[in-house]
């Protein structure tokens, strides 16, 4: 199966979209994890040169973006009123 190798701007767009979606998670731990996993995943795949593995990493990333978009909505629907104490820290220190 011939996969289409993404362009540089397509990869960057996916990266930014993932980070943007990560920020929408109401849950502290999930939000931080999604950010961290995105950054680490892209860093890890930075050295990929084989077109096939680039294409499959890109389609995996796109699938993850779709999941993240859906789940950010689900999490927002059932977000607890009280935030994690990790989210309150800036308010406490002021």
């Amino acid at each position, binding site marked *: 199966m011939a996969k289409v190798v993404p362009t540089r701007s397509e990869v960057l767009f996916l990266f930014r979209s993932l980070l943007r979606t990560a920020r929408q998670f109401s849950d502290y*731990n*999930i939000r931080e994890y999604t950010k961290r*996993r995105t950054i680490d995943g892209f860093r890890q795949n930075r050295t990929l040169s084989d077109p096939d593995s680039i294409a499959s990493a890109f389609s995996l990333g796109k699938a993850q973006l779709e*999941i993240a978009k859906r*789940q950010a909505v*689900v999490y927002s629907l059932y977000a607890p009123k*009280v*935030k994690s*104490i*990790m989210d309150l820290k800036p308010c406490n220190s002021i």
Partner: protein
Amino acid sequence: MASKLLASTLRQTLLSKFTTTHHVRPLSTAAAAAVSADYHEDTDGITMKGVKISGRPLYLDVQATSPVDPRVLDAMLPYYLSRYGNPHSRTHLFGWESENAVEAARSQVASLIGASPKEIIFTSGATESNNISVKGVLHFYKDKKRHVITTQTEHKCVLDSCRHLQQEGFEVTYLPVKSDGLIDLDQLRSAIRPDTGLVSVMAVNNEIGVIQPMEEIGQICKEFNVPFHTDAAQALGKIPVDVEKWNVSLMSLSGHKIYGPKGVGALYLRRRPRIRVEPQMNGGGQERGLRSGTVPTPLVVGMGAACELAKMEMQYDEKRIKSLQERLLNGVREKLDGVVVNGSEERRYAGNLNLSFAYVEGESLLMGLKEVAVSSGSACTSASLEPSYVLRALGVDEDMAHTSIRFGIGRFTTEAEIDRAVELTVHQVEKLREMSPLYEMVKEGINIKDIQWSQH
């Protein structure tokens, strides 16, 4: 007759009185106060059990249960919505699609442990799998096999199943563990008898996180041709699990310890050489008659997705959890003396850090750490004030066993959470030690073990 009538009238009046009061209770002010005092949540914070917390505590108890990964929930949700079919329905699309999903999940679970999908049976959790393994095997081979070997640090459900077997006349050997929590292989070898029907040793301990030498135990069991069962609930997805390398005949797995849903687990049952069990649950003959009852499609799909994720993320998670564990341990040790790691430091799963703080009372420490969700050991026994039986089996002194705290680090734990946990723990331990006369005496150079307490 009259007395009978009187009694029945009395009973009726009492009963009606009781029911009326019962109905009124939720409306009475006392009950209303009790409800609101027990739990209250608004944007300012949570009040529960008399404790007020400004935000949701940071979670460091992943050995008790782990949060569900959003990717797992994403796989599950369709089976809670339109795809609600019973996987055992053979006559329509709803059944077929559910069956396909269950079989796909079975393959995902099997692939994580190096087994064939045919060897996986879905259950309600590791407790049920352990019960089927221990009681099922012995009941099936009861004519020839009358003896079980297990360890003193096993999970309650294995120990309790063994106790149940003892009541039926089977014999059980509870192997002691060394001070690092590992079993002595020579002791295991000498405990095996011709009528030993099962050896059950857990892979990763739930309280102290030590990893037993599974391959070596499997080798010994192979040598004596004894079935080997392991409770791998805490090992799955965290350390490499391979049923061939470990030579296990039965293995218990759990969904909610690997970022999957609660209420689902699996049992690995070897086909070659075949191991047979007596079912604990009789009925419609689902799961090849070994575990009757409708397979819960959404939960099973969640467990499958969690296993696939675990396979994909194991290396990444392991590296991260290791560094977080070091950060936590170094942070605490830098500022506090008298901190002891319970269980072997080399052969342990990094995500479980069981620490004892000398001269501090464990329950007061836990009470003070309301913003950190940790426990003193297993969730099953954390309600009692008794020190953990696992720590006692290790030979940990009573005073140190009372001060143990288990820090569980998982996929979603952040560096900032570890730093906050260290800060809060150090603060609380220092505060408690300041109040402790024992700590003062130790600082003055008195050995508290030599003190003759006058009233003892």
